[in-house]
């Protein structure tokens, strides 16, 4: 029996009177890597932002470890938030701080570790993503891929149980993307961390993602949900099969 860490129940999202998500229900299990897929404008990022409590659902609710993040207040809310780590599409690193200070910031704010412990722990997190030699650099001195990895190091500062990554490997070269996939896989398998990833990269999806949810741009609801290989081969929806095959075909030829 799988243990659900995130439960999305009948989620409906509305933005400026436009329906973005219509009656979405799904579960994310502990230790799995869960992919959110769909065309541009299908509400992938909106679903992610509802999961991390940035947006309030128009209807339905979302439970993280059995608790409703929107209803939680004060300490209870902080406890849930400390259990999740988020990276954004552009990295969202603080431009005025070095990489080390970026990673150190959440540790400094939420723990009372002594300064050398903070430095060491921040450095360890940077080492985990292969950036220990760039710890004194400013975000502006880094390449896009390095920024994304640094953002992952910062999101992991407080050892969250669940990580949300918004297009982590978009814009990375294939080698770096594969290294990132490898890192995610190691974290998920050895630490039982749960990952929710918005992605377009079919290579990553087949390599690491356990289950995907596919969002439909037209009906604003779930098109399919399940392991990616299974959806590719056995999906009843023609569009889902076509989606996987067409992209797979172009990937093979390209």
């Amino acid at each position: 029996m799988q243990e659900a860490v995130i439960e999305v129940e009948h989620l409906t999202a509305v933005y400026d009177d436009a329906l973005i998500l219509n009656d979405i229900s799904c579960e994310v299990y502990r230790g799995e890597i869960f992919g959110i897929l769909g065309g541009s404008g299908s509400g992938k990022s909106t679903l992610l932002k509802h999961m991390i409590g940035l947006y309030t659902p128009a209807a339905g609710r979302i439970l993280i470890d059995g608790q409703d993040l929107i209803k939680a207040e004060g300490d209870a809310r902080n406890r849930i938030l400390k259990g999740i780590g988020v990276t954004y599409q552009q990295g969202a690193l603080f431009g005025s701080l070095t990489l080390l200070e970026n990673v150190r910031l959440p540790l400094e704010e939420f723990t009372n570790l002594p300064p050398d412990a903070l430095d060491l722990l921040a450095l360890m997190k940077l080492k985990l993503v292969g950036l220990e030699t760039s710890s004194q650099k400013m975000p502006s001195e880094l390449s896009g891929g390095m920024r994304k990895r640094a953002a992952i190091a910062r999101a992991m500062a407080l050892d969250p149980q669940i990580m949300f990554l918004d297009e982590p490997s978009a814009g990375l070269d294939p080698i770096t993307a594969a290294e990132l996939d490898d890192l995610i896989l190691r974290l998920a398998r050895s630490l039982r961390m749960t990952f929710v990833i918005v992605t377009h990269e079919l290579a990553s999806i087949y390599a690491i993602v356990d289950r995907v949810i596919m969002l439909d741009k037209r009906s604003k609801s779930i098109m399919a949900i399940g392991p990616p290989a299974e959806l590719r081969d056995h999906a009843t929806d023609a569009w889902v099969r076509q989606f996987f095959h067409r992209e797979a075909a172009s990937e093979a030829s390209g």
Partner: protein
Amino acid sequence: MSPASYPRPSASLHAELLANGVLSMAVVGHLDAHTTASLWRDSMRELDRHPTNKVVIDASQIAYCDGAGIALLQGLRLRLANARGTLEIHSLPSSVQHMMDLYGEVLPNTSILKGTERTSLVESTGRASLNLMQDVHSLITFIGALSYALLLAIRHPSRVKWKDVGLTAELVGVNALPIVALIGFLLGLIMGFQSAIPMRRFGADLYVAHLLGLSVIRELGPLITAIILAGRSGSAFAAELGSMKVNEEIDALRTMGLEPIPFLAVPRVVATVLMTPLLTVFASLFALIGGLIVMQSLGFTLMTYVDALQSVIRPGDLLGGWIKSFAFGLVVAGIGCMRGLQTKSGASAVGQSATKAVVSGLILIAVVDGIFAIIYYSLGL
């Protein structure tokens, strides 16, 4: 297992100095970021108390360990390595071993753990002078580039983006009118009242009009307008162009073959240079209206006031103040654009550019005002 669960988990450290000089420490419990904070201090204190070069840690009773716990073990290892000692960890649970392997070993000579180096006074003085020189250099370069672009604009007016000039003129000029009028009015009112009190003692209160008219037209009108513009528009230019720089929009323009100075700076400078004299007229006018209210409260009529003003203000005064305001507009807009284009990167850099734009704008306004004072003096104006 989750760190969020109740009751709050705890961890403890039991240290003992063995007869053979080895410090033995048993780490017990739940090692997360909260419990590790006190363990870190305790263990470092034990090491201070018993300076030894061999430490053995019994890890068998670690129930849970996250990154912070691993940092503790690594921190102890680094500290002993710096003192040429060794650390042995016994019976590490396999889950913790997994974490150890995942993080790998941080090298003991990692620079950040040695603390930051303090810079000497000589070094910081040198750096500051170098920065100042670079600043002056870039200012001169920018003035050159801007003058060239402005000359080109005068020779080929059709190449200027007049639509942008119009939009900027509205923002810089029309929208600034209420604040310029208000400050000008208050200036006239306050100066009038403050000077009327002592002058009345000597029966010279009619000369409030002379004092006010001359100082407002020649000096204060242009100056107050320039200061308002530096705070209002110079900073806005710097922030706007700075954000464009941060978002790589300036780079995008360059690669399209559009140079930022003619494309972005020239319309702003032209609009500001055209608007500043107009705003100066309004600032002076409202200051004189403020003075009129004071004069009327002292019992003088409108005619007397206007007469007094006409007798003291010569056309040269009007023209002098007016020409000066062109120069002020040029300085304020130019500095705003320059600081914006110099923005490095990051959100805080935009703020710094806006601040620098206002500060250097004010300094240059004072410098330009001084230069004009000398010129007018030698011309006998």
